[in-house]
């Protein structure tokens, strides 16, 4: 089930909220866990058992770590836990890719000779596996206490607001909230506000940008004009940002409705806080503490794995390595030059690299990706400047959404909020007008989003490879 669906909005969400506030406090976590498992099973069917298995294994490892003091035994347990989690991820996410690689090395072999049927990739497996890893590692490091209640740990791993598209929440950030959390109209209303903003980002901007991006990426790249190629990658850039940021907003908003305060993980482009890789990989590898060579090695490992985390194929590896390479380049040679630039030029530089790298994120085949880059930089020779499908889709709605996309990826909302709110202090009548206008705007946005979802308009789920 996805948040931007009629079944979620009008069946799952109201029923879950009603039941949640109807049952006693003691049953709320069990209810939320049951609803989360149902939410997952709705889309993934029998694979919900995989998640239950993950909960059971990690509960067992955590339980053991919480009771044993001997260092060697604890280390063994956490290594077993990490291995089992990574094996789970490896089998379901990377087997098909590895089989294709082996079949590519040995031309007489077909993928079907090695694997009868491709293995299904359960949605969200990377998210819940990383959350589970965070739990056992934090318990091992004594950063947090082991969870004695399996339902509580189950809720941490499977909680539906951040189950299929993140954000990845560290256990020690929510451990206390799982046990005891506050409910108030103010918190619930702020959750509603955040959820509606997120849904609007997804439905009104990301989906519109995605439709155009898909049209462009369906064309023959060798015949693509530079203008259309840049339009395609600009739309894809906006789609990715508003889809990710929209899902994060919806997750944080839904969390607040149920009393959780998830940490912010996303800001305006492109500041996503990848603390998981920093805390559980980069720093344990040595970070930047052991000289330049090892720092660069660590950066490359982190970004290689970060790329692979996003999907099991070479294009994601390339995408990750591009980011790692530029970070290393900036540390070694570009830093002094970049420091002399104005902030706006530095933003342009970053966006230029990020946008070009998205070509590899989007296009799986390497030669196609090179062709696409060729189209962007006038290198493909002949091209068709006019494309009927793209021309027909380049309508007023698209232009409006594109402009809104460009505007709202800047920190306009945060900026105006920081300036408007202090002006309202103590001015009841103006404050009432502003709050009422905001409520009207929120419900108009919600209604328009629902109207787009009601006609089954274009609504892709881009996390299916995560």
């Amino acid at each position, binding site marked *: 089930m996805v948040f931007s669906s009629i079944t979620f909005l009008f069946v799952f969400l109201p029923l879950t909220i009603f039941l949640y506030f109807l049952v006693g406090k003691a049953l709320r976590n069990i209810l939320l866990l049951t609803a989360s498992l149902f939410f997952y099973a709705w889309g993934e069917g029998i694979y919900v058992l995989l998640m239950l298995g993950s909960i059971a294994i990690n509960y067992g490892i955590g339980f053991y770590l919480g009771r044993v003091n001997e260092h060697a035994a604890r280390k063994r347990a956490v290594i077993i836990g990490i291995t089992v989690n990574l094996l789970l991820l490896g089998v379901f996410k990377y087997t098909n890719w590895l089989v294709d690689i082996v079949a590519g090395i040995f031309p007489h072999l077909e993928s079907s000779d090695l694997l009868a049927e491709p293995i299904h990739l359960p949605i969200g497996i990377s998210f819940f596996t990383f959350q589970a890893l965070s739990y056992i590692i934090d318990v091992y490091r004594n950063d947090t206490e082991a969870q004695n209640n399996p339902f509580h740990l189950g809720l941490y791993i499977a909680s539906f607001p951040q189950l299929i598209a993140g954000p990845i929440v560290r256990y020690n950030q929510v451990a206390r909230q799982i046990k005891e959390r506050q409910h108030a*109209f*103010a918190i619930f209303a702020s959750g*509603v506000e955040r959820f509606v903003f997120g849904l609007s980002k997804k439905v009104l901007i990301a989906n519109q940008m995605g439709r155009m991006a898909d049209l462009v990426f369906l064309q023959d790249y060798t015949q693509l004009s530079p203008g259309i190629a840049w339009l395609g990658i600009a739309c894809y850039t906006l789609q990715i940002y508003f889809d990710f940021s929209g899902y994060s907003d919806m997750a944080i908003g839904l969390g607040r409705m149920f009393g959780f305060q998830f940490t912010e993980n996303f800001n305006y482009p492109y500041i996503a806080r990848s603390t998981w890789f920093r805390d559980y990989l980069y720093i344990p590898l040595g970070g930047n503490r052991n000289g330049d060579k090892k720092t660069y090695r660590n950066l490359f490992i982190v970004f290689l794995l970060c790329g692979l985390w996003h999907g099991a194929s070479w294009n994601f590896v390339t995408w990750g390595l591009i980011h790692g390479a530029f970070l290393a380049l900036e540390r070694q040679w570009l830093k002094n030059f970049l420091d002399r630039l104005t902030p706006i030029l530095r933003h342009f530089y970053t966006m230029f690299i990020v946008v070009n790298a998205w070509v590899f994120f989007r296009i799986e085949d390497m030669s196609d990706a090179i062709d696409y880059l060729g189209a962007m930089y006038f290198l493909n020779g002949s091209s068709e400047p006019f494309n009927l499908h793209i021309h027909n889709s380049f309508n007023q709605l698209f232009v409006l959404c594109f402009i809104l996309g460009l505007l709202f990826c800047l920190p306009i909302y945060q900026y105006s909020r920081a300036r408007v709110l202090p002006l309202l202090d103590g001015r009841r009548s103006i404050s009432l007008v502003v709050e*009422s206008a905001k409520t009207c705007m929120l419900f108009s946005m919600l209604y328009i989003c629902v*109207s787009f979802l*009601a006609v089954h308009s274009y609504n892709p789920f881009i996390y299916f490879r995560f």
Partner: protein
Amino acid sequence: MKQISIHHLLLSVLFMVFISLPLGIAFISVDESVSQTEKRKLAELPAIDFSLTSLEEFPTAFDSYFGDHFGFRQQIVRTHNYILVKMFGIFLPGIVR
């Protein structure tokens, strides 16, 4: 402070009403089999027999059914068509003007 609390209360209640009404209306109204606005047959409520195949197919079939039958759907679809046609001059196949 009191006004802000009223605002939060209002926002929370209105949201709950907004997301609950379509299910409530769908529950008490008679299912139509054809949409006059869209000139097409609407999805039927899927049967469920607790076999593994049936359980696997049920969510998609139910999504289609509920997507066609939730309360206020006709009004909401008309809003969508109004936005596209009147506000943006977009004529898509399938939109009944």
